[in-house]
């Protein structure tokens, strides 16, 4: 095909997007590193270069380890559930049964509703004399301090994240299930395979790439949780539900300790980038082929 555009045309088309990406992405990206080498705690207008002192402070801070541990708990609890349970639901919905659209709409509803409303709704369920504790006391157990007991708070918050994510991943799985050739299932039926045997031998191997994709994207979003924690617990009690992003927010915007917060942000950046690189180069390759 002949070249019908001028020499500068491609750059003109790219320019507006790149101006915004430079201002709101590339400059902040490098500035995050720069900020992390400065101390702002005496004045936010007169930073003092302190080298890696913020990182030393960070690694000596017990809250940092608590926050990392909480993020780790988030990962090991939320990710397996979000990778497996929506797949199970998708398999159920993918059968030729009635009411599929209604089920999909209802299960997808939490995805669409604002996380703030979702967190408020759960806060109400978790209230000390709330409906959940009614069921707990029904079994003659002590009421649980869902959001006030340091042993429970993080799990109560994780439940909200899981509840809000199920529908989203279920739809991703449904799309993947459509690509499984029907003949394979028919062969299973002829061999007399049961429900679980059929899906273990055909479905799961066939959609393994999607399972891997869901695992990494749910891991990435688990590391970015903020609103649930902000609305329900503010990271408490005793830092028991504080995760990386909430800690960055707190140190930056409440304590104005920009250097320390940026060192923390660099840690988040490194962890998330590692997951993203795996995701892009292993599971979403075709989407980003040049």
């Amino acid at each position, binding site marked *: 095909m*002949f070249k*019908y555009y001028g020499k500068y*045309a491609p*750059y003109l*088309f*790219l320019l*507006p997007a*790149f101006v*915004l990406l430079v*201002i*709101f992405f*590339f*400059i*902040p*990206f490098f*500035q*995050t590193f720069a900020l992390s080498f400065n101390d702002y705690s005496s004045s936010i207008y007169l930073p003092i270069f302190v080298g890696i002192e913020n990182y030393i402070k960070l690694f000596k801070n017990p809250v940092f380890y608590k926050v990392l541990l909480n993020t780790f708990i988030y990962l090991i609890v939320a990710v397996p559930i979000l990778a497996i349970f929506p797949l199970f*639901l998708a398999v159920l919905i993918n*059968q030729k*049964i009635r*009411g599929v659209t209604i089920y*999909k*709409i*209802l*299960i997808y*509803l*939490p*995805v*669409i*509703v*604002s*996380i*703030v409303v979702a967190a*408020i709704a759960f806060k109400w369920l978790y209230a000390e*004399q709330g409906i959940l504790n009614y069921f707990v*006391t029904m079994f003659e157990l002590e009421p649980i301090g869902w959001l006030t007991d340091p042993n429970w708070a993080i799990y109560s918050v994780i439940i909200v994240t899981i*509840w809000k994510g199920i529908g989203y991943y279920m*739809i*991703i799985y449904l*799309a*993947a299930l459509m690509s499984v050739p029907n003949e394979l299932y028919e062969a299973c039926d002829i061999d007399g395979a049961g429900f679980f045997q059929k899906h273990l031998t055909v479905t799961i191997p066939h959609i393994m790439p999607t399972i891997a994709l869901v695992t990494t*994207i749910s891991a*990435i*979003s688990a590391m*970015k949780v*903020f*609103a649930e924690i*902000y609305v329900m617990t503010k990271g408490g009690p005793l830092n028991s539900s504080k995760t990386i*992003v909430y800690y*960055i*927010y707190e140190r*930056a915007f409440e304590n104005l300790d920009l250097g320390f*917060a940026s060192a923390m*942000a660099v840690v988040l*950046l490194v962890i*998330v980038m590692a997951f*993203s*690189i795996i995701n*892009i180069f292993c599971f979403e390759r075709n989407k*980003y082929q040049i």
Partner: protein
Amino acid sequence: MKLSLKNKHYISHIILITVSLLSIFPFIWLISTSLKGGGENIFAYPPVIIPKDFTWDNYIGVWKRVNFIGYFINSMIVAGGTVLLNLILSSLAGYPLARMEFRGKKISFFAILATIMVPFQAIMLPVYLITLKLHLTDNISDLAGYLGMILPFAVSAFGIFLMRQAFMGIPREMEEAAIIDGCNVFQVFLKVLLPMVKPSLAVLAIFTFIGSWGEFLWPSIVLTKENLYTLPVGVNNLQGMFSSNWRYIAAGSILSTIPILIFFLAMQRYFISGENEGAVKG
């Protein structure tokens, strides 16, 4: 025959009905609380789902004290502006990446790809400092406040790649025919290519809208004035306003959800068809 088919699937139905109920139960309980009058104990054991002292008063009360229309308009402006800019900038940038050969194409491509890997939460602090420096905050003017909420999200790698993919699917003959007819490159883009990628533009618009509508972290960082609050920020603020008046908090939360619920039901096929797999950002 029909009956036996139903029997075969009854376990699936039981599971799916249970999960569906669990998905909406938190809202049902919130609605129930919002409709209970002062004469009814909202902490009653056993819990009562159908209000005994039924009333709309909580809705009226919270409506009078909270500027929901204002929050709604602010959310519309921010989400609308974000969608519009994303459509324009993503299609402009996606076109040369899909259709043109030029120096630096590979670098541009990987630069955009890099932005996917870095979470906004990790760079939000410098983004905030830059927004302050550019005077894009609500203490300068309302317009500056809106721009401060819109511009950091005005273009996304997701949008650029989506549009690039869409342009790549158009047969090259379309452009050739237009050039022979005397169009220049901008006319080719505007009059020939853009109309052909409308389905992708719709997908981009819908998912950008949902993302922007629900955004909480960034507005809660940049906003200082109540008159620019978006719905999520306003709803979060209900907790402080009505401290433990759960009837009002519940009514306010439900009110704020109505617009997006209507939007979702009208557009549901885009969300649940599975064709746009992975379109929402996590």
